[in-house]
C-alpha cells in the first residue's frame, strides 16, 4: 500500500510541477522583462494552467493526412514515458523513491538517449520539411551533448563510488559535490540545457527559423504532451542536478527531506528560466563547435584531474 502511494507521489509531484511551470515560467519571465504576466485567471493568475489545459483539450486533435500515422501518434508518448520513467530512480526523500537502482545514473542517461527517438520520430512522421530539419538538429544536438553529459557525471560517480542516486546523496553528508565537481556541474548544466532543448539551446524549435521545429504539425493534446514533456525535462534535469551536486534531500532537519529536495529543484528550475530570459540563441554550428571543442575536452580534463586526485589521496 505504502509502495503504491510512493509511486503515485513520484508520478504526481513531477507532473504537477511541470504543469505549474507553465504559469511559473510566464510569471518569472515577465518579472525579468518588467511586465506582469498572466494575472487574470484566479488568484495571481494561478488558474491559467487549468484554462490552458481546457483550451488544449477542446482544440481539434488533427493528424495530418500526409503523415505516418502510427508513428506520429506514438512519438509524444515516448517523450513522456522516458522522462517519467527516470523519476522512478530519483530519491525524493530517504525512503521516498520507487526503486533504489544500483545503476541509477546509467538508467537516467539511457532514458534520456531514448527520448531523442520521440523527437526524431515525431519530426520524421510529420512529413514536413521544417519538422524534419528540426528533428535532425535535435538529434545531432542531443547526441553531441549526451556524450559529455555522461562524462561530466563520472566525477560524481568516482567521488561517491556508486551509480545509485541514493548512495550519492548519502555520500554528500560532509559537503555538496558542487564544490569538488564545479566544472562537472557547469558542463552538466549546459548539457542539460541542450538535452531539454531549452532556450538558449532551443535550436530544434527555433521558431524564428523553423515554425516550431519537430512539433510543427502537432495540435491539441499531442502538442500538449510535447509541451509538458519539455517542462518535465526541465524538472528532471533540475532534480538530478539537485541530487548529484546539491545534496538532494539532505538539509537542516527542521523541515522534511522532501521539502529540501523540492526546494533545491525549484531554485534550479528558476535558474533555467533566468537563462531563457537573458541569453540569445547561438547559431547551430556555434552550438556544435562549443560542444565538441570546449565542453568535451573540459569534461575529459575534469575526469582526469578528479581521478588523479582520488588516486593521490588513497
Amino acid at each position, binding site marked *: 500500500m505504502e509502495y503504491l502511494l510512493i509511486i503515485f507521489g513520484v508520478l504526481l509531484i513531477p507532473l504537477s510541477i511541470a504543469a505549474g511551470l507553465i504559469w511559473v515560467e510566464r510569471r518569472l519571465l515577465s*518579472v*525579468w522583462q518588467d511586465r*506582469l504576466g498572466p494575472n487574470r485567471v484566479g488568484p495571481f493568475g494561478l488558474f491559467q494552467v487549468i484554462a490552458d489545459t481546457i483550451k488544449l483539450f477542446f482544440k481539434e486533435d488533427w493528424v495530418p493526412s500526409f503523415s505516418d500515422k502510427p508513428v506520429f501518434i506514438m512519438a509524444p508518448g515516448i517523450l513522456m514515458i522516458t522522462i517519467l520513467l527516470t523519476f522512478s530512480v530519483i530519491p525524493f526523500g530517504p525512503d521516498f523513491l520507487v526503486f533504489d537502482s544500483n545503476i541509477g545514473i546509467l538508467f537516467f542517461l539511457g532514458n534520456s538517449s531514448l527520448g531523442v527517438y520521440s523527437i526524431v520520430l515525431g519530426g520524421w512522421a510529420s512529413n514536413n520539411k521544417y519538422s524534419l530539419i528540426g528533428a535532425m538538429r535535435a538529434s545531432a544536438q542531443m547526441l553531441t551533448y549526451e556524450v559529455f553529459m555522461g562524462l561530466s557525471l563520472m566525477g560524481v560517480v568516482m567521488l561517491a563510488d556508486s551509480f545509485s542516486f541514493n548512495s550519492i546523496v548519502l555520500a554528500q553528508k560532509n559537503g555538496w559535490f558542487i564544490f569538488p565537481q564545479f566544472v562537472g556541474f557547469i558542463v552538466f548544466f549546459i548539457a542539460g540545457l541542450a538535452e531539454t532543448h531549452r532556450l538558449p539551446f532551443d535550436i530544434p524549435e527555433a521558431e524564428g527559423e523553423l515554425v516550431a521545429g519537430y512539433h510543427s504539425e502537432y495540435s491539441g493534446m499531442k502538442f500538449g504532451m510535447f509541451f509538458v514533456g519539455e517542462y518535465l525535462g526541465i524538472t528532471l534535469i533540475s532534480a538530478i542536478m539537485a541530487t548529484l551536486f546539491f545534496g538532494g534531500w539532505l538539509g537542516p532537519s527542521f523541515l522534511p527531506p522532501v521539502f529540501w529536495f523540492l526546494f533545491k529543484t525549484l531554485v534550479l528550475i528558476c535558474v533555467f528560466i*533566468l537563462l531563457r*530570459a*537573458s*541569453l540569445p540563441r547561438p547559431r547551430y554550428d556555434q552550438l556544435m563547435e562549443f560542444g565538441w571543442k570546449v565542453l568535451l575536452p573540459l569534461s575529459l580534463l575534469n575526469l582526469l584531474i578528479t581521478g588523479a586526485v582520488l588516486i593521490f589521496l588513497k
Partner: protein
Amino acid sequence: MFSILRTIWLTFLHIFHKTETIEYPEVKPYLPPRYRGRIVLTRDADHNERCVACNLCAVACPVDCISLQATEDEAGRRYPEFFRINFSRCIYCGFCEEACPTYAIQLIPDFEMAEYDRQNMVYEKEHLLINGEGKYHGYNFYKEAGVDMGIKNKGEGENEEKPVDVKDLMP
C-alpha cells in the same frame, strides 16, 4: 564568457525594477493632450459649428474615410449637410486635423470605440459634433478671415489685410 554572466546578472536585477505594465481596464493610461484618438467636430465660442464644409479633410484623408456634403444657411454661411466618418477605415493619422483651416475637425485622446457591429463604426454628424471648442479655445475662423458673416466687416479681421482698392494704382 564574462559578458554572458553579466547579461544573466543584469537580467536577474530586473526583479527589483518597477513593472511598466498599466493594468488597462482598471487603470486608465495617461494620454497626452495631443494623442490622436477619436475624431470630433468642434464648435466656436458662440456655439456655432466651426466646419465650413471645405472638403479639405476628405481630400487629405489617405484612406478616404471622410465623406461630407456642403450646404448653406439663409445668411450664406457654409456648413456640412451630413458629415460621415467611417472609423473602421480611419487610421488616426491626423492629416484631416492638419488640413482643416478652421480647427473644426480635431483628434482627441479617446480610443475606446470598440463595437460588436461593424456598421456602428460609421459615425454621423450628430455623433461627431461636440458642444465644446476642443483643443483650440477662442478661435473663430470668421473673426480671423473669411467672408462677412455679420461677425466682422471685410478687411477688419484679426490677421486680415485691408481689401485692395482695385481702382487705385498706388501700392
